[in-house]
Structures are given as C-alpha cells and as structure tokens.
C-alpha cells in the first residue's frame, strides 16, 4: 500500500489512460474527453503535492533503486501534471475547432504524461529508457495526429526517426556503462566508476586497462549527453524541433514544448549529477559542464537568431523554445560547480515551472486566434488583432511578455535566477551571453505585439478573430493565474524549488541510494 501511495503520481495517469480508452470505446459520439483528461492530470498534481506536504515515507527500499521518489521528482511531477492538464484543455478547444476531435488523443497524452513522470523519477538506466520511450511514442503519434496533412505526417516522421536514433544512442551509452560497472542503477554505476578511477594500477598492463576503461567511460558519458541534448532540443541536435513543432497540431506542440522539455531536463540533470557529478567519478568525464556550457551558448544564440527571421509565429515559438532550452542549460552547467549545487538546480526547476505556464499560455493564445480554416500563424495574420479583440490580444501580450522576461511576469524572475546562479558559479561570460540573448529575444517577441497593436491589416487580407471555446479560455485563465502569481511572489516559489533540492529533502531518497549502492554490489561480487 505504501508503494502504491508512493507511486500514485505515476499510477494515476496510467490507470486514467486505461479508463479513457474504455470511455472512448463505449461513448457514442467523438469528443468530450478533454475534461476527464484534465481532471486526471490535476488529480496527479494534487497527489504529488499531498505526498510533498505529508512527507515521503521513510522506507522506500521497495523501489530497489529503480525509481527515486524525492521532492525533486514530486516538484517535476506536479509541473508535468499541470502542463498536461492545461495542454489537454487546449486540445479540447483546438481539436474540436479543427475537426480532429478523435478520442485516442487523450489516452495518448495521458500515457505520455506517465512516461514523463517515470523519466523524472528514473534512477536506473533501464527506467530512464522505458520512461523516455513511453513518453516519446505517445508524442510521436500526437505529432502526426492530423492524418490528412502532409506537413503533420512529415513532422511526425522527422521527429520519430531522430528521436529513435537518440534513444538508440542513449541505450548504447547505458550498455557501455553496464559493461564497465556491472550495474544499471545510477548509484551503483557512480560508485563503481569512482572506485575504478581511484584504484592505483599494479603494473603497466593494469594501467593500460584502466586508461581504456576511463576512455570508454567518457565515450559512454558523451553518448548519454548527446541523446539527452537531442531530447531537450539543444543545438547542434535541435534539427527536429522547429519542424516537429510547426507541423504538429498546435495543441500537440503545446504539450511537446513544455512537458517533454520538463521531463527531459529532469532526467538530464538527475543522470548527469548522479553518475558524473562527482569530480573524481570518471576522470575527464567530469569535464562535462564545460562542454555543456558551449552547447548552452550555441543553443541560446542559434535559437534566438533564427527566431528573428521567422514569419510564422508558430515556428518563431519553436525557435524560442530552443533558446529557452539554452537558458535552462545554464542551471545544469552551474549545478556541479557550486557548493552542494542547490541554487542552480533550484533555479532550473523554477525555470521549468515558469516556462511551462508561460509557453502554454502563449501557444494557447495562438490557438485562440485561429478559427477553423484560418489558423493564424503568421505575423501578418495578427495585424490589428489586439485592437479588434482586446481581451484575446491582451492574453497573448501577457504570455509573450513573460517569455521575454519583463517584470512583473514570472519570466523575468526565472531568467534572473538562472543568470544569477551562473554568476555565482563563476560562469561570468556565460551569464553575459545569456543576458545579451535575452535582449535579442525581446525584438521578436515584441515584434508580435507591435503587429497586434499598431499595424493595420493589409486590405483584403483575412482578419484573425478568436474562436469561442470554454476549454481554451479556462486553460488561459489557469496559465495567466500562475504567470502573475509566480511573478508577484517569486521568492515563495523559489523557496519551494530550493526545498526540493536541499540535502534535507535528499534524505528521503537516501535509503533508495543506500539500498541500491549497498545491496547490489553484495549480490554481485
């Protein structure tokens, strides 16, 4: 029972998805599953919060090190569930408006959420792989959900091929780590790598063998790093991102851009910090933050510069999501460098929650602006939109300001915290590049506002007008509520993120790690 309670944030979406499939099979007409899906997600979020509030049970050894349920994973579970709930509300409005409302969309989104939650809790390479595939398979299908559209099919094919390739790289890296250490759990791999690096070689053969093993360890680390960089959409592994986001139905894009990103960053941070975070772990493999810093610079700069040139708002948001992945990487780069790694890690968690609500709001406001047959996705479509429809225009304005990082919205504070943590960790140049990039990004976000408020549509051009949907309105209200609430009281939310990563919270996870590190070697040597 204890175990069921502990796993309930993951189990609720799994059971919920099965119920949704039954509901879909037995209901007479299509549609109407958005509200149950949102409720399942909200319940999972509530369960994660309840576990957080009442404290985790001390004995989590039943998980055998496969999953780590700590406050970090609960924080991310709640973020993912909130993102999934808002995305399913958006789907309820979008799919109905564009005559795509087939019931299988909702079980897919719910299974993906379960996979995403597995991913952020995974502390074993097997669970990492399973969570990644559970999440990705659902998202591939959601990308290609508009079956009659060649663009949607093309987006799904590109995303599927590159995503599976990345998963195969991750698997090869995991297999190499297993060959080296005989363990699949993070704690066991980390301690075995540490012991191997600390050993003094007896003779020349042993020394050569040790060097080879260290090189294989670095290669395995690179494979894991590259495959996770693929999943978060970091340059130079970002090629799939704009295509998949643009071709996918907009509600799928909303889900992909926040939930997949949050889950991939959670898993990325956990595996890098758990296995390679220790400076002695695998010799030169501990140099990954420096490599990741270059990736972060490239990701921010390339994402922002290409976003400047876009004429489609949807594709611009795709490149902006690449740029945001760059800012998020700052937190991950800084985390191993500082004492305990708490502030940077907390800043990253805060950023993930902030980006979830801001980006869902922005994509939701874009969904609101597109009626059937007239999905307004280009900047020109939106000319004069805010003057004709002040409320809908204001919604898009609010979320774009949050993405830009203008106070009092939450976007300002999330950027401020990651840049500050990079400065504290001694990455001054990186922090300056991030600030310059933030200034560049203001140009294209504010360009949309200029179009909406100050330009008149070209004569004879189609006029964008908002669709009517209670689902989308509800989703926007929830997102706006969080954007403003977190923007007014950022310290309170940052404290929650700090509490999640603080060593006191890690104590709850310690039995898992001890169990994995303690019992597994005894069983194998």
């Amino acid at each position: 029972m204890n175990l069921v309670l502990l796993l309930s944030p993951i189990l609720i979406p799994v059971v919920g998805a099965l119920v949704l499939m039954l509901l879909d099979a037995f209901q007479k007409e299509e549609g109407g599953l958005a509200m149950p899906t949102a409720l399942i997600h909200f319940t999972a979020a509530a369960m994660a919060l309840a576990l957080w509030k009442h404290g985790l049970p001390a004995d989590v050894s039943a998980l055998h090190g496969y999953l780590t349920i700590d406050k970090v994973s609960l924080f991310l579970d709640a973020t993912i569930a909130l993102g999934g709930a808002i995305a399913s509300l958006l789907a309820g409005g979008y799919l109905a408006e564009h005559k795509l409302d087939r019931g299988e969309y909702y079980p897919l989104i719910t299974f993906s959420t379960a996979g995403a939650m597995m991913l952020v809790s995974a502390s074993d390479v097997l669970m990492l792989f399973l969570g990644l595939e559970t999440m990705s398979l659902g998202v591939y299908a959601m990308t290609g959900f508009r079956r009659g559209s060649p663009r949607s099919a093309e987006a799904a094919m590109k995303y599927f091929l590159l995503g599976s390739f990345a998963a195969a790289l991750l698997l090869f890296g995991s297999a190499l780590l297993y060959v080296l250490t005989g363990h699949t759990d993070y704690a066991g791999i980390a301690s075995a790598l540490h012991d191997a690096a600390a050993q003094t070689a007896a003779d020349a053969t042993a020394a050569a063998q040790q060097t080879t093993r260290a090189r294989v360890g670095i290669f395995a680390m690179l494979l894991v790093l590259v495959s996770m960089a693929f999943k978060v959409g970091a340059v130079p592994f970002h090629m799939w991102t704009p295509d998949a986001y643009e071709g996918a139905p907009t509600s799928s894009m909303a889900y992909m851009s926040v939930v997949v990103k949050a889950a991939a960053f959670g898993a990325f941070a956990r595996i890098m910090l758990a296995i390679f975070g220790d400076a002695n772990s695998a010799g030169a493999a501990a140099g990954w933050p420096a490599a990741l810093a270059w990736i972060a610079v490239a990701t921010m700069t390339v994402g922002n510069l290409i976003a400047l040139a876009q004429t489609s708002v949807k594709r611009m948001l795709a490149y902006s999501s690449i740029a945001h992945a760059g800012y998020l990487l700052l937190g991950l780069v800084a985390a191993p460098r500082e004492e305990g790694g708490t502030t940077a890690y907390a800043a990253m968690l805060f950023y993930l929650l902030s980006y979830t609500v801001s980006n869902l709001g922005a994509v939701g406001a874009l969904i609101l602006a597109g009626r059937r047959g007239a999905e307004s996705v280009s900047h020109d479509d939106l000319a004069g939109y805010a003057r004709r429809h002040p409320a809908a225009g204001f919604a898009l304005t609010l979320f774009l300001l949050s993405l830009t990082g203008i106070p009092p919205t939450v976007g300002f504070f999330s950027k401020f915290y990651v840049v500050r943590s990079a400065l504290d960790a001694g990455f001054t140049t990186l922090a300056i590049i991030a600030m310059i990039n933030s200034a560049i990004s203001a140009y294209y976000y504010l360009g949309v506002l200029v179009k909406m408020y100050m330009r008149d549509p070209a004569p004879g051009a189609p006029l964008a007008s908002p669709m009517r949907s209670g689902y989308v309105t509800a989703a926007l209200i929830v997102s706006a509520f969080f954007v403003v609430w977190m923007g007014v009281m950022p310290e309170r939310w940052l404290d929650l993120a700090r509490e999640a990563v603080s060593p006191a919270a890690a104590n709850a996870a310690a039995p898992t790690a001890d169990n994995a590190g303690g019992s597994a070697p005894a069983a194998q040597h």
Partner: protein
Amino acid sequence: MILSLGHYLVLSTVIFSIGAAGFLARRNALIALMSIELMLNAVNLMLVAANRWQPLVQGEGGATTAPAPHGHVFVFFVIAVAAAEAAVGLAIVLSYYRLRKTVRTDAADMLRG
C-alpha cells in the same frame, strides 16, 4: 580460439556503427527504421554478453551463484520497446507514404526555414 567478452564487445560495436552509418547515410525512411533496429539489437548483444561475463557471486561456505541478471532483463525490455517503436514508426511512415507517395526523407522538405 576461445571467445572472450572483448570479441562480443567489438562485434556489437561494429554492428551498432553499421546501423548508425546506415541511418545517417541512407535517405529511405524504411532503411532508417531497419538501421535503428540494428542498433538496438547490437545493444542487446552487448548486454547479454556483459551479463554472461559478470563475475560469479561468492556465497556462504564457498558456494558460488550466478550474477544478478540485470543485463538479461534489460534485453527483454529493449525487445518489447523495439516492437512498440516499430509499430508506431511503421504507422507514421505508412501515413506519410499515403499522402506523398514516397518514403524518401530528402523529399520531406515542406517544413523549413
């Protein structure tokens, strides 16, 4: 000649590299799918070989038992996931073929910029 773990590791690395090279070089979506399957199966070979060569566990009174089957179990999961992945992948390629009458990835150029 006695086969050692090293032989298996080299073989699986070679198979994995063939798969990766095929994925990167060929422009046919079905061949890309086959290359991914090849990569996954190379990993399977590496996992079972590594598990087979795990040291025996010394138990009470000098009795030895087989090592924990983590690698073998991993392989079962990989096989199941590969099947699910192939199902979704073939469905996606099929729906693309229906609309475009080709499975060449270099013809997939509607989304760009």
